[in-house]
């Protein structure tokens, strides 16, 4: 049986039978009580020292269907059996770890996720032909663990618009603020996956895990609390900035801020995401698709000839425009009309009695030009950073490490 988002039900892969997961008895209870012997606490078998070492990351469980032994990585709570491919959910492990209170079931099917990624790749003008035609090597539906926080945030922010100060006194409440609780994944990647609409969350049921993979949380609560505070501040500040009239954006500077906040963890939930990996010359590029909204996150390399051509063409065009401007205004002829003696005079003047006003003008022009150049490089670097996130080996391993079929 696998959970099928299109039916919002469990579907048998053999007979096609569709079953409402809510109609099933609690699978966790069922598996825990199916044997005569009670499940053994791992602490009774392994010493505390061993628990904190490598052994804790690799335990062997028995597949409930074929009896084969399944190796489960330290933070994994559900997987496929590597022998029979059944969706063997390791219920003991869930019972020993923090059981999520809520889960947002997959609404986007694997086909829809693939289509969303393919549509993005096909519409990109700088996307190399390889990626437009490439078939994904790994597709994984993974539930990512999140802590949900509740609380409030208030701040008195003072802005300066030229000489004029003005104050915004704002406050807001947060409900179900998600903080990703898995250390392996880059926070930046999962931040981009949001928003998740947590009003669609349902009480956790192991049935939803069938056919998918999931990780349990391994982030310390203190760290999660810090991330919640920072995240709330970012959201709050963005909202305050939207209140500033557009025409004042460039002239406005925030000069002071007195934030106050209080957050408490309200629950622990699993949120859905598709991990789609395309391999190019041994380098994996992983795209994430929000399993609830279908939002695609990822960056692909670009066609170097096209991008190089664009930069060269725009540089030549802008340079010609600038030369034309200088020619039209007669300034260029002035520069070229300078004879050697004048140049040498200027040179002497520069070194001996350089005018302070001229010096400031030259410095100003130079700094302005460098600022534009810096902004250009920064924009380019941002795209490069996003590309590095997509080919992050950690993200790839996160999805690849889960056993089972490749697609």
């Amino acid at each position, binding site marked *: 049986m696998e959970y099928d988002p299109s039916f919002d039900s469990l579907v048998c892969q053999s007979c096609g039978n569709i079953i409402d997961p809510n109609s099933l008895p609690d699978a966790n209870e069922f598996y825990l009580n199916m044997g005569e012997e009670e499940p053994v606490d791992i602490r009774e078998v392994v010493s505390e020292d061993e628990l904190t070492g490598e052994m804790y990351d690799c335990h062997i469980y028995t597949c409930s269907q074929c009896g084969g032994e399944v190796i489960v990585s330290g933070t994994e709570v559900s997987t496929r059996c590597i022998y029979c491919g059944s969706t063997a959910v390791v219920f003991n492990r869930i019972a020993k770890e923090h059981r999520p209170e809520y889960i947002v079931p997959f609404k986007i099917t694997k086909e829809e996720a693939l289509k969303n990624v393919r549509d993005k790749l096909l519409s990109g003008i700088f996307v190399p032909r390889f990626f437009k035609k490439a078939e994904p090597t790994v597709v994984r539906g993974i539930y990512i663990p999140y802590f949900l926080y509740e609380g409030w945030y208030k701040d008195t922010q003072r802005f300066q618009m030229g000489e004029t100060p003005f104050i915004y006194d704002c406050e807001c409440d947060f409900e179900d603020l998600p903080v990703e609780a898995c250390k392996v994944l880059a926070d930046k990647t999962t931040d981009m996956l949001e928003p*998740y609409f947590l009003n669609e969350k349902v009480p956790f049921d192991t049935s939803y895990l069938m056919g998918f993979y999931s990780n349990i949380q391994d982030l310390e609560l203190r760290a999660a609390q810090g991330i919640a505070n920072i995240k709330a501040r970012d959201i709050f500040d963005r909202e305050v900035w939207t209140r500033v009239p557009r025409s004042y954006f460039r002239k406005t500077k925030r000069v002071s801020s007195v934030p106050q906040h209080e957050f408490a963890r309200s629950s622990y939930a699993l949120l859905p995401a598709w991990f789609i990996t395309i391999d190019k010359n041994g380098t994996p590029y992983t795209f994430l698709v929000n399993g609830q909204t279908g939002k695609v996150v990822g960056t692909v390399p670009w066609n170097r000839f096209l991008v190089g051509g664009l930069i060269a063409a725009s540089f030549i065009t802008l340079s010609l425009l600038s030369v034309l401007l200088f020619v039209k205004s007669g300034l260029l002829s002035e520069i070229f009309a300078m004879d050697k003696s004048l140049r040498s005079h200027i040179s002497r003047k520069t070194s001996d009695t350089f005018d302070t006003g001229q010096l400031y003008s030259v410095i100003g022009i130079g700094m302005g030009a460098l600022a534009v150049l810096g*902004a*250009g490089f920064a924009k380019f670097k941002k795209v490069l950073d996003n590309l590095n996130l997509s080919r992050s080996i950690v993200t790839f391993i996160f999805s690849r490490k889960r056993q089972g079929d490749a697609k």
Partner: protein
Amino acid sequence: MIVILAAFIASFVVALGLSFLLAGVLLERSNSYGSKKESSPSMKRFMVSDVNQKKI
């Protein structure tokens, strides 16, 4: 004169910067997905008070 010369040289640096900026913007739209931050549904009841509206 030296200022004009500086402005002339600077115009090429600006042209290079603008070229990279343009390429970056187009690349972000074409090859980078999901980097735009969207409003969070977790935020409820945003209230603004004591705004010095007259000075805006």
